[in-house]
């Protein structure tokens, strides 16, 4: 028998499998393979199990959890990938498989895919919603700056801020803006600055670079730190065409580091203009108020009862005073308005802030003297009124009696007698004197005028 010529070697399954394993693992050192992901499973162990296939064949793949840290995207069924690994045999099942230690999407860059996946996820959580974005302070007390202490970005930012508003207070938290440590440092910086009470806005900046250079700004932990930062964050990463996850989460996205300065720091002259404009309106409304009161005064005076109308000299005097008061006020307001105009010109020219303060105290002095002027004129008017009262007193009939005249009244009707023709002999009359009165009887009536009777 043929079989008898060779010694029979009987292997156990384990031995055979071990032999196959040795051959395979020796023959296929670290290699790259491309294919489509299917049957992806992630059990509770966290290891990734899937099949890589092409049109004709397939191979099982396992990727242990410890290898997944380097993954920049989440594998999904149907995604074309390139895998790096070694072929090994799973002895228990007698199956060969690829032990994968790196995986990247084929075609589209791994980073791009990772970016799109994270963007979609955060967008669905509402982190990019305009409604949750906070307004920036108009005039920040102190600006937190998170960027590299050595790059061009920090220099540009400080220069532009200084040109817009010299003396702005800035606190720089230096961080690495690329590399493995960058995300952690950025997170630490945002957390630290966000807790300081005097920081009311943070600029997160980096100059231009490749997608790999800017990668730290696409990390989820950075997005999370921006999202939970207690003060508004302005992102300014790369050039105008670069968009990072940080840009989407930030309260405001500035196209460049320089652009961030323009949104965070207002022009000093603009702010000063705004304040000066309010002061001007304040002064004008006060002027109008005085004018209004004056008009009211005039209409009240016009509606006064008859007796006062008779005292035209006093009315004239009042008009005169009113006219002078009006002229004084108009002149003051005009002068003040002109002064405000001149002041504004100087304000725009150079270092106007001190003059602004001077202008205000000047305005206050002026208001003070206006008040004094009004009080003075009121006192004059009061004195005139008192004089008028004594004049009124002098023309009162009682005063005439004092000069020896008396009034004759009929009895008992007590009607004033101005004509002797109405009297009859024996009629009773009452005569009133400056002091006291007398009861009389008519003994003779003379109807001629008093002049003739005296003759």
């Amino acid at each position, binding site marked *: 028998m043929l079989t008898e010529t060779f010694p029979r070697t009987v292997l156990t399954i384990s031995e055979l499998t071990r032999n196959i394993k040795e051959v395979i693992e020796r023959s296929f050192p670290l290699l790259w393979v491309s294919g489509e992901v299917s049957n992806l499973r992630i059990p509770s162990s966290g290891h990734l199990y899937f099949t890589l296939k092409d049109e004709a064949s397939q191979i099982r793949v396992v990727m242990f959890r410890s290898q997944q840290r380097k993954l920049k995207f989440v594998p999904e069924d149907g995604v074309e990938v390139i895998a790096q690994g070694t072929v090994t045999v799973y002895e228990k099942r007698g199956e060969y498989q690829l032990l994968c230690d790196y995986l990247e999407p084929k075609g589209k860059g791994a980073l791009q895919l990772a970016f799109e996946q994270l963007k979609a996820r955060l967008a669905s959580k509402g982190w990019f919603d305009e409604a949750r974005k906070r307004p920036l302070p108009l*005039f920040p007390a102190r600006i937190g700056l998170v960027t590299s202490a050595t790059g061009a970005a920090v220099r540009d930012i400080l220069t532009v801020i200084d040109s817009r508003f010299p003396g702005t*207070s800035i606190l720089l938290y230096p961080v690495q803006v690329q590399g493995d440590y960058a995300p952690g440092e950025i997170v630490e910086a945002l957390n630290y600055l966000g807790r300081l009470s005097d920081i009311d806005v943070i600029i997160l900046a980096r100059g231009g670079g490749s997608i790999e250079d800017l990668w730290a700004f696409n990390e989820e932990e950075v997005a999370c730190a921006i999202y939970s930062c207690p003060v508004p964050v302005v992102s300014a990463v790369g050039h105008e065409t670069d968009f990072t996850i940080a840009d989407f989460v930030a309260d405001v996205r500035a196209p460049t580091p320089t652009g961030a300065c323009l949104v965070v720091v207002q022009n000093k002259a603009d702010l000063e203009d705004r*304040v000066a404009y*309010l002061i001007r*309106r304040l002064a004008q*409304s006060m002027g109008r108020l005085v004018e209004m009161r004056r008009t009211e005064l005039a209409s009240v005076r016009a509606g006064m009862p008859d007796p006062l109308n008779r005292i035209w000299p006093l009315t004239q005097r009042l008009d005169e005073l009113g006219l002078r008061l009006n002229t004084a006020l108009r002149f003051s307001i005009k002068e003040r308005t002109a002064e405000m105009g001149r002041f504004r010109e100087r304000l725009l020219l150079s270092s106007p*802030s001190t003059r602004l*303060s001077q202008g205000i105290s000047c305005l206050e002095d002026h208001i003070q003297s206006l008040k004094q002027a009004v009080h003075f004129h009121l006192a004059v008017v009061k004195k005139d009124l008192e004089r008028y009262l004594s004049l009124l007193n002098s023309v009162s009939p009682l005063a005439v009696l004092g000069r020896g005249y008396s009034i004759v009244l009929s009895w008992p009707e007590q009607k004033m007698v101005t004509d002797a023709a109405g009297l009859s002999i024996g009629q009773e009359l009452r005569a009133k004197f400056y002091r006291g009165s007398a009861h009389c009887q008519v003994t003779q009536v003379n109807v001629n005028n008093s002049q003739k009777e005296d003759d």
Partner: protein
Amino acid sequence: MKFEETLKQLEGIVERLEAGELALEESLEQFEEGIKLARTLAKKLAEAEKKVQILLKNEEGEITPQPFEPEK
């Protein structure tokens, strides 16, 4: 008080005065308050002193601010 809050208050006073519906006494009070706020704003704009600082960690890991001047 923050700059924009002060500014907003001043704007409110100016608008009330311009509406002309206040009593004389009240107008004067508002006017004086307005002048005070305007002075505060002008002072805030004027008093910003240049202060750029960098946070540095020492050997103990404590973070302290130091003056900062960017490299030319």
